[in-house]
């Protein structure tokens, strides 16, 4: 039997105390509404629109995020280059940035006349549009994805890549044949976490895309708008959907055994 140790007991107590608080908070979301109402709200026109827009933008954003996160994570893990520290800090910055401030920064950038005209010339407009929802989601979740990818590549023995190159494979061939297959758990975790972040992004979307009813309305915006109108049923339903996405994401993340 282990001897009584107050430090050990305190640590365990604090961990369990916070767990109980979180379970209570999350549980209350499920206790308050009636299942019948949730089901009805789920099939309402607004919820269907919001759900569809969230899924579509979430999937597109996750795809874009992963296209960037893989090479960014690999570069930060494997290569030494000028300004590496600065690059890492700036890419990680949105993790610590308030979403509203990030949204404001993006609004100022993409709302700038010159940038706006330039983007419009290639068919892009991020200000108060659905494209803006994607841009907001991408900028919010990219730091998380690139951090996961960096730590994934950090865990892969670089000597495997060295050996592959000594056997005649180029850097790109080695990346495809060795690094990517070995990073599959990290890629899965990164994709799932990115998707959950994209679906759940609120502040950045609100500022850049506008959060307009049935136009740029994604699930967090539905929650916000309905709370504002006093429509708790719809707000709770979107909350439950967001929570379900988060649960699935965390479950897959834990299974993939990759830590941030």
């Amino acid at each position, binding site marked *: 039997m282990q001897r009584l140790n107050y430090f050990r007991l305190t640590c365990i107590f604090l961990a369990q105390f916070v767990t109980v608080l979180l379970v209570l908070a999350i549980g209350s979301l499920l206790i308050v509404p009636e299942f019948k109402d949730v089901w009805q709200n789920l099939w309402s026109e607004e919820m269907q629109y919001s759900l569809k827009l969230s899924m579509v933008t979430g999937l597109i954003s996750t795809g874009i995020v992963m296209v960037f996160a893989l090479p960014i994570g690999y570069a930060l893990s494997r290569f030494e280059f000028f300004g590496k520290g600065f690059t890492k800090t700036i890419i990680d910055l949105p993790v610590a940035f308030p979403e509203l401030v990030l949204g404001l920064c993006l609004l100022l950038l993409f709302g700038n006349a010159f940038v706006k005209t330039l983007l419009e010339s290639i068919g892009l407009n991020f200000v108060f549009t659905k494209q803006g929802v994607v841009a907001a989601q991408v900028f919010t979740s990219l730091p998380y994805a690139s951090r996961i990818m960096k730590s994934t590549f950090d865990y892969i023995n670089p*000597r*495997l890549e*060295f050996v592959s*190159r*000594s*056997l005649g*494979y*180029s850097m790109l061939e080695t990346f495809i044949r060795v690094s990517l*297959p070995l990073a599959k758990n990290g890629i899965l975790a990164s994709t799932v976490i990115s998707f959950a972040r994209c679906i759940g992004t609120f502040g950045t979307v609100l500022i850049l895309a506008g959060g307009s009813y049935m136009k740029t309305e994604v699930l967090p915006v539905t929650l916000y708008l309905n709370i504002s109108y006093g429509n708790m049923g719809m707000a709770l339903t979107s909350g439950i959907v967001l929570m379900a996405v988060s649960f699935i994401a965390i479950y897959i993340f834990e299974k993939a055994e990759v830590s941030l």
Partner: protein
Amino acid sequence: MSLLEVIGLSTHLGEFCLKDVSFSLDQGDYLTIIGPTGAGKTILLESIIGFWTPEKGKIILQDRDIFHDPPEKRRIGIVYQDYALMPHFTVLKNIAYGLGKQKIQNSAKKIKALARSLHIDHLLHRKPHTLSGGEQQRVALARALAAKPRLLLMDEPFSALDPQTRQEARRLLKKAVQDTSMTVIHITHNMNDAWMLANKTAIMKSGRLVQFGGLMDVLSRPRSKFIAGFVGVNLLKAHIKPGLNGTSIARVLDTELTCQESTDFPHSGVIAVRPENIGISKSQPVLVKDWNVLEATLISIIDNGNLFRLALQFEKFKMDAVVTRHNVAFFSLKKEDRVYAIIHQDHIGICESQDSQPLENASCQADHQAHLCA
């Protein structure tokens, strides 16, 4: 013409510097690189293979400077201490991985033949993590050999093996290398690897190659106290003068030793005697031509397992000798015994000093007696 010439290679990696390393190897040479941890041995190998870009120098392989070639163009194989087997491949796929870029006829047959020669043909469909250390080591070797590299680099490939497996691995490696006339550079901390496999040896310290040469030359004639300590040699300060019939006389304080090596003029220098080249007898041996016989007191006996290290106090200096358990038992050797040390003239090397810690400082006892540096 040399197969490999490394000329003035300098690599800067973080706070570590590989400084001005130069050496050359002929086809079929087996070089062991010995040195303390952090001496830059692995960085030297990885600079030769192209994983790090050196700041300056030349790497000439088969008459062509490969300094600017990427690793995939150099055809240099490497076997690491941790074997670096692809965990997502089977043994067969790991070995075949090196052949993937080469168009080789009957590649499956060749892989199987290679696997058979290294006794891993029964493991071909297993994943690396299910193999023992010795098996993984042989798979890594098979993978490197399958690609038919022009030069094979090995970074402490036996360090994780038990003594018995290590011995078997050495035997298999020696056969594989001899069969293919492969040129090898092998980093090791184990002198037995050098004894059994190498014909050349290099010693590294703080990013520099402090001695390079034939195996026996380096192990018998270290250029510094540091190297002597590393390769385990007795160093004695001596006054050396020409002897009869092309020999030299090394005078160590009041004791004279005859060396087979010749010297043209008297000078102060250092002689080196390997501990295993000192024979021990309790009775005075009949004087035989070419042998030096010295009387000594046995001041300590250290049991190193199958060998014993004896510390011998001569008239005014000390040396270590290594003898077998049988020797100790046969002569009933014990502390304070008077014994005779027998050293062949061929086994006394006259050393030259070239590195930053010159041999003149090797005998550093306060009373200026020559002493054991090993």
